[in-house]
């Protein structure tokens, strides 16, 4: 019983609080004050580690926190909680809309994290997808609607792709426990690709990344923080759950994902460098970082027997990026250029994401390199990885130049400071708790030279007085590919409308009735509508029928 309560609380409480928002006055005020605390409930199943089965809910719902969910649950509890604190003071417009989206998203991701069966996971994931749309369109400007529309189209399409794939599993073996998935079913590659592609939308893997740079700048700051820090990682969760390492034939797709990962890592930075809006730059940085996570996942697929070591390392990467990226987003609302201290608070997470020595970023890189080594990938990849650090450092320098002049809110919010500290500390704790070897000394030099290279480039460019961003601006709009896609969609829409209009021509009358018959009908109609007696008529008819049968 208690296991049940422990596992249900993180899912149900946010929903109940969201429902309270509907009632004006005291319940609503209570809901708004309670909402920021909700993510902490995730600590319960994490600490207790108990499992529960609800045989009457959904399609036999099973809940429990396991090794896959643990790092993301920690991330969710800390980052979502701190962002909630930030939001409690800073979101003033349309608070009901904001908090309902916030709470339902949280319930969704909690369910996705804790669910141990396919249907339960998918339910949480779908809730998360739809509810985070509310966070994106919060401003309800034209720009926000556009971002929301593009997000929704991609999210729904991705969800349907994933649905098709997971239904293929269900058709073969039913709604089985996620833990049994790797061994239970042999899947046609096409279905597996559908699953991967479906969840890749959330992760922002190129070329499915286009919603991120549009959604992040329009969402309220704390919402961008969790979108970029936590929600994108729901895609990773989807991969780990539905294409777990060790699945039949999964190792073969590892190299393809590896290439996709490195492409995403560099493409994110390159496009990001052309952008002039702070949160757009951060969004592209997230895309780039997700490329690295994708590489780690690919390595995991290629070395499934080493999952016991690699999974915690993947956790380090998720925690590191989630917390630090959330800090950078919160910085956007705290006028970071106003004092040295604030500058430091931006520099710490930025350096971490660029994988500077002794930061959590170095840990993440070490993890990734360990993974690649376990997967037996050639040495050249390690060099490429180091270069992503250089690229990221350049991108974040670009970010700093933009954010420095930002002076929206004058005060710094304590939640920002707390998030920066969490980013510094939590991944280290994770490494210590799991007894991972951080390769401190051997990692120092590989972590140092890419940054030195970046610094050299920056210095050279300043010295040349050209600024970092190239003079020749390719003029890529935020969301790059999506602009052409939108054009195509508009054309398709027009075609579809035309088609529909053609179909709208009245269908030929299938039952031409003779004029006299129509006239008779009309006459009958007049008679019958005049009388409530018509009822008797039908009853009488029934009686007559009965009499006839008796006589015969």
């Amino acid at each position: 019983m208690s296991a049940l309560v422990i596992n249900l609380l993180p899912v149900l409480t946010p929903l109940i609080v969201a429902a309270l928002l509907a009632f004006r006055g005291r319940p609503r005020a209570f809901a708004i004050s309670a909402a920021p605390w909700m993510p902490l409930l995730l600590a319960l199943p994490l600490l207790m580690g108990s499992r529960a089965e609800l045989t009457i809910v959904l399609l036999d719902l099973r809940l429990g926190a396991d090794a896959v969910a643990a790092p993301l649950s920690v991330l969710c509890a800390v980052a979502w909680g701190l962002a909630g604190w930030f939001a409690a003071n800073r979101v003033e417009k349309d608070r009901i809309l904001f908090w309902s989206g916030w709470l339902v998203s949280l319930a969704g991701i909690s369910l996705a994290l804790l669910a141990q069966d396919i249907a339960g996971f998918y339910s949480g994931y779908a809730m998360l997808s739809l509810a985070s749309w509310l966070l994106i369109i919060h401003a309800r400007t034209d720009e926000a609607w556009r971002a929301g529309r593009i997000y929704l189209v991609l999210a729904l399409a991705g969800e349907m792709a994933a649905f098709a794939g997971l239904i293929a599993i269900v058709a073969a073996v039913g709604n089985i426990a996620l833990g049994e998935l790797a061994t239970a079913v042999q899947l046609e590659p096409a279905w597996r690709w559908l699953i991967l592609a479906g969840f890749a939308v959330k992760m922002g893997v190129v070329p499915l990344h286009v919603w991120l740079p549009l959604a992040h700048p329009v969402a309220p700051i704390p919402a961008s923080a969790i979108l970029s820090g936590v929600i994108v990682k729901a895609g990773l969760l989807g991969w780990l759950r539905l294409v777990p390492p060790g699945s039949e034939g999964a190792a073969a797709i590892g190299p393809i994902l590896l290439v996709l990962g490195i492409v995403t890592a560099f493409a994110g930075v390159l496009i990001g460098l052309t952008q002039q809006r702070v949160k757009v730059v951060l969004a592209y940085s997230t895309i780039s970082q997700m490329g690295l996570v994708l590489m780690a996942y690919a390595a995991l697929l290629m070395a499934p027997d080493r999952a016991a070591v690699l999974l915690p390392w993947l956790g380090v990467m998720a925690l590191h990026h989630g917390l630090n990226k959330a800090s950078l987003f919160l910085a956007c609302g705290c006028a970071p250029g106003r004092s040295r201290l604030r500058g430091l608070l931006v520099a710490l997470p930025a350096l971490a994401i660029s994988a500077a020595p002794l930061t959590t970023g170095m840990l993440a890189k070490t993890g990734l390199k360990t993974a690649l080594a376990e997967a037996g990938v050639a040495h050249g990849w390690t060099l490429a990885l180091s270069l992503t650090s250089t690229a990221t450092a350049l991108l974040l320098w670009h970010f700093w130049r933009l954010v420095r002049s930002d002076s929206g809110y004058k005060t710094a919010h304590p939640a920002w400071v707390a998030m920066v500290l969490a980013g510094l500390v939590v991944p280290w704790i994770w490494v210590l708790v799991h007894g991972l070897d951080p390769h401190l000394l051997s990692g120092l030099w590989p972590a140092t030279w890419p940054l030195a290279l970046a610094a050299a480039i920056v210095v050279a460019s300043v010295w040349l007085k050209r600024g970092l961003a190239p003079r020749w601006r390719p003029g890529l709009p935020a969301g790059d590919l999506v602009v052409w896609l939108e054009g195509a969609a508009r054309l398709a829409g027009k075609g579809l409308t035309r088609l529909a209009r053609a179909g709208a021509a009245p269908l030929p009358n299938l039952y031409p009735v003779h004029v006299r018959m129509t006239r008779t009908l009309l006459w009958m109609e007049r008679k019958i509508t005049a009388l409530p007696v018509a009822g008797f008529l039908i009853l009488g008819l029934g009686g007559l029928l009965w009499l006839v049968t008796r006589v015969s």
Partner: protein
Amino acid sequence: MISPWTTQILPPAVVLVSTLAAIVIFVAGEARQRLRIWVNLTAALLKLLLVVWIGLEVLAGTTFMFRFELLPGLELILHADALSILFASLSAVLWLVTTVYAIAYLEHSPNRARFFGFFSLCVSATMGIAMAGNLLTLFLFYELLTLTTWPLVVHNGTPEALAAGRSYLRYTLTGGVVLLTALVWLYGLAGNAVFTPGGFLAPLAAEHGGALTLIFVMLVAGFGVKAGLIPLHGWLPKAMVAPAPVSALLHAVAVVKAGAFGIIRTVEDVYGLELVAELGMRLPLITVASWTIVIGSLLALREHHLKRRLAYSTVSQVSYIVLGIAVGGLLATSGGMVHLVHQGLMKITLFFCAGIFGLLLGVKRIDQLDGLGRRMPWVSGAFTVAALGMIGLPPLVGFISKWYLASGALAAGMPLVLAVLITSALLNAAYFLPLVRRLWLNPPGTLVEAPIEIGRLPRLALMSSAVATAALVVVLGVLAAHPLSPLNWVVKIAQGYAP
């Protein structure tokens, strides 16, 4: 155990309760409003109790059979198997809710005796369809349903309503004639046979294959008129001129479901899916259902009138049932049959809400929905739940149907059917999500007309009906695995058909 006499008398009793109510209502006349309300509610409750009683007995293994020889060789048979109970309990529950709704909705309109009288007769006919034990009985009640719903469709008496009524009769009566022909032909071949799981025509297949194929086509076409299979759907969008409670029932239970139920009986209990496949009719049936699903949704996308959009959505969604049955296998059959209940709940909620918007605020078009969430949060909330359910969003009932249909399609090796379902889900999102957005996120528009003031009690009745059915949409979805959920009931039925 209950006595044999009771097992004979209960099925006709379920049918006759409403007939009696109708007689009382007709006799009492227009003025006796209070009496009418009491009779209506008592009959609806009594019927629900009877259905529950029979359902529990069927679960315990009792067989119910009532035979009555109309003419030598032509029997009227009422029985109760699990499938009957599925349809009967859906009808009984929704009728109760709709009665409450209709009493409030029509509080100030004329001709209420006529309306409620036929309303009750309509229930009788539907119960007859649910309980029918052979094709003849099914046909008789099916035609009775046509005749008793027509006065409801034309209730407003406007030229538009009369035109819709004519169209309705033209379609359904023609369908009836086709059905009758098929019936006579079939009786000539197979005699007076009762519904048998797995069908009773297999022995005739070798000799009369061609005839059986033709009869099958005619039966499906005859029932397909009411089920709104494209291109036989023309009457359905027109019929939405009827008052909201009628639309709600037409779309959710009575008429379209009668058609779908007829197709289920034909496929499962007269022919058997194996014979259907043997005659080469399974693929065409799947095709018809698939295109109805997709085209219906496309047509819905085009409509800007709220009730018309909902009507085309019905056209599309009812074919899920036919699709599930035609694909076959335990999963898809369950998915199709459970959609009988699930679609009913969602669609009745949507029509209840559309009716409330129309009656109280004069809102008929989609662009008038802007900002109604603030004005009517409960009704808009119910609408939202049902619309999200239609898209198939978990944990609502539509998701459960979709899950079973989709996995059934793949289990039967038909990925194209999965593609149809996914296309439909996306189209559903495309025509329902904008409505939800308008309700909650758009700034309120100017009111179409002054809000109509109705009493507190009727207002409460209207809203609570919509909220109650919306609550069922959530509860039956969340508790889908409960032993008493429609899903588990249906899985039991499907095991009988597709072991």
